[in-house]
């Protein structure tokens, strides 16, 4: 079986400007949503308490809310979580309130109202811990970006590193934009997913770049856009199949993983879809705009003339 019987080189670069404009618009939209709506941070970042309670029969969110309000808990958000039987109660940090008794009191309140309330999970994060987690997350993103640029600069050239990281940070912003637009909860696992996607889709760019370098050597008379077109066409089959297999896993996670893995899988899904697009159709035009040309690889070739199979090729 073979899905991609591509006999001709597809002229991707002819439409480079179109792709870049699409990217720019999506990117600006994502930035716009991030700026206006902001991310809906989970309790891990903001600090506060989350209590998951399960009922044997459907949970009555309004009654729970009423019971909590009567008990004097203000600003609590009560919503169904995963199924109609599970409820998630979010409570903000209150100065001077001890975390130790809060969850106990809440569950006592709920059990007084309905005996079937079963405590499933409590998560309390103090304000300081939340701030540290946010800082460490930002730091991790920075380190990953620098590490990848450095690696690609060593493996290829700084222009490749720069275009790959721009293309893939653009993915990250778009994932975050989705989370801002739909106000999905941005939690630590989502952050992990975002960073995993960053590492994952950069290797996509690497595969294309490997081919670009190889084609510069092979296609002596071709122009830069033709070289890039040939590279993308040559790798597109592998790109789709690889991402497809990863997406199969992520989709099963989305279906079977339950609410705990829902946003994690969602972030991966967006990341994988935009990863294909950006590494192929954003990174490569960027490479073109940065004026990569054959002369850079003649040098590379001279330095490594003894091994023409050097580097990765697909």
């Amino acid at each position, binding site marked *: *079986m*073979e899905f991609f019987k591509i*006999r001709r080189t597809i002229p991707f670069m002819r439409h480079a400007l179109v792709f870049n404009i699409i990217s720019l618009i999506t990117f600006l939209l994502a930035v716009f949503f991030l700026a206006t709506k902001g991310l809906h941070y989970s309790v*891990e970042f903001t600090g506060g308490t989350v209590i998951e309670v*399960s009922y044997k029969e459907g949970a009555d969110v309004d009654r729970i809310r009423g019971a909590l309000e009567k008990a004097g808990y203000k600003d609590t958000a009560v919503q169904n979580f995963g199924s109609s039987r599970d409820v998630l109660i979010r409570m903000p940090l209150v100065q001077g309130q*001890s*975390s*130790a008794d809060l*969850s*106990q009191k809440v569950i006592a309140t709920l059990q007084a109202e309905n005996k079937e309330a*079963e*405590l*499933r*999970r*409590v*998560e*309390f*994060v*103090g304000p*300081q*811990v939340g701030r540290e987690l946010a800082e460490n997350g930002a730091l991790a993103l920075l380190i*990953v970006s620098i590490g*990848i640029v450095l*690696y690609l600069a060593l493996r290829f050239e700084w222009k490749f590193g720069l275009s790959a990281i721009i293309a893939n940070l653009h993915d990250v912003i778009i994932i975050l934009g989705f989370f801002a637009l739909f106000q999905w909860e941005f*939690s*630590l*696992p989502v952050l*992990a997913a975002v*960073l*995993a996607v960053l*590492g*994952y889709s*950069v*290797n996509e760019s*690497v*595969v294309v770049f*490997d081919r670009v370098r190889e084609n510069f050597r092979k296609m002596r008379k071709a122009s830069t856009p033709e070289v890039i077109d040939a590279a993308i066409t040559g790798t597109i089959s*592998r790109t789709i*199949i*690889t991402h497809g*297999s990863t*997406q*199969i*896993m992520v989709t*099963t*996670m989305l279906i*079977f*993983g*339950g609410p*705990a*893995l829902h946003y*994690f*899988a969602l972030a*991966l899904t967006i990341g994988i879809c935009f990863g294909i697009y950006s590494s192929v159709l954003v990174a490569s035009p960027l490479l073109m705009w940065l004026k990569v040309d054959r002369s850079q690889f003649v040098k590379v070739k001279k330095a490594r003339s003894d091994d023409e*199979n*050097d*580097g*990765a*090729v*697909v």
Partner: protein
Amino acid sequence: MNRFPTWKYALVAIVVALGFLYTLPNFFGESPAVQVSSARVTVKVDAGVLGRAEDALKKANVAYSAAALDGASVRMRFADTDTQLKAKDLITQALNPDPANPSYVVALNLLSSSPTWLTAINALPMYLGLDLRGGVHFLLQVDMQAAVTKRLESLAGDARSQLRDKNIRHSGITREGQTIRVRFRDADAREKAKRVIQDGIADLALTESQDGEEFRLTATIKPEAVKRTQDYALKQNITTLHNRINELGVAEPVIQQQGADRIVVQLPGVQDTAKAKDILGRTASLEIRMVDEERMNADTLAAAARGEVPFGTEYYVERNGAPILVRKQVVLTGDRLTDAQPGFDSQTQEPAVHLTLDGPGARIFKDVTRESVGKRMAILLIEKGRGEVITAPVIRSEIGGGRVQISGRMSTTEANDTALLLRAGSLAAPMEIVEERTVGPSLGKDNIEKGFNSTKWGFLAIVVFMSVYYAIFGLISSVALAANLLFLVALLSLLQATLTLPGIAAIALTLGMAIDANVLINERIREEIRGGATPQAAISAGYERAFGTILDSNITTLIAGLALLIFGSGPVRGFAVVHCLGIMTSMFSAVTVSRALVNLAYGHRRRVQKLSIGDTAWK
């Protein structure tokens, strides 16, 4: 060209066999068990304890499937939870005749039912995180400021007693913020005092100053002493937590330092979170102070009750309801107290509490009691800034040697309670819960099931797709992917790395990404064939040329994984550990294991007409 030397096949076979071996314990499940460990430092768990526990069960005809002494604990396995509960009661009765003062912690636990020969080679099931097995996780922040303040208070006390010993007159020692100020009437006394304090208390740095008629000596605590105090406070608190948690009877508690001033406490399987928090949250510390009897009379007490407390004292109400005025000056703090046990007075047979003080504590106590025979002292429990007088006994005589007995007017229960409060109260610095995660057991089970299901279905879907799309080569890729899963689980079991729900997600994701390597190889082989290469040459070239790309892609992914490992905490770290390990195992399985299989299938045939790698005939 597509043949491995025999040692390479052997290597693959051995690695796969080891993978099986170390994955094996995960399939045996768990059986209910009772675990006996020591509740006190002085009590050792040895073969004698095992024997006593076995005797107790045999006498009551309770069957057990295994009993063993494992390190510092005795573990006994049972057929079902009913027997387990019954056995726990029997063992508790046999080992702890006095329930108020237990020597052993007898806890319910789940132990792997894998055979002993597996355990003997260190093959254990994966260590499940709290989100999978249920339990409580706390992150406690130690109030280091308070630890240093307390240390300063006690240093001020030391200075006071040293100046008194040397008969140096001063007009007051006070702690002001983070400094101690000593006032003198003349420079001569100050000079003498300076020498005494410098010789006697190495932790203080002294500076002189003068304000009008007043000569001052200002002492600050040295930075290295601050550090030592903080380290000590953390260690002391960890020890105290160990003792407190022993009361809970948790089988495998984790109590660890995290960073400079935090303590992680994990109590797997704990259902009674209220009690756990209650015990941990008891952020109490002890202080011994003198009762201000000179100024304590009906009038001052009445005034104090209204809020007009005489200067330098504090107003408290004793447990029996009697009001009392206590001096602010601290004689001893709880960290000087090494033990407190309930017991009886050897002469009168009255219930009593026996305290043991450490060396400096004993010296201070001797001085204080010598000067205050007939007076009362108060033992206060300070909890979150609020004090409570536990007991306020009369000092009958000078007490040396650090052994203190408090007796009179108390019942056995009161003696027990007081001893427990005194013991549990010996935290070196207050702590606060800054993070808490409680996972109920039902959620833990759900999480395992959900994580397992998504991995299973995702894996099957990939196997089906690969086998259809790449035929025999797809099947080989799938076997390599299965080997990857095997290695990953074996490695996680071997390292006993904590597996969490994000960790299971990472297993699934890593499998999805690992297949990338095989896709790269298979696509490359197809391309070689389309380019006119012979089947054998195509295999060889495909594997060789794809390797560079596989390495590149794994390294970029690994960069992200390592950053997550370094900066991540909690769920992110659980994800990162598995992700990084998975990337490394996938390198071996996708390249070496699949190549070994391909070589076995094709490399030894004399003539290969066609590779079963799907449709390559077009073009």
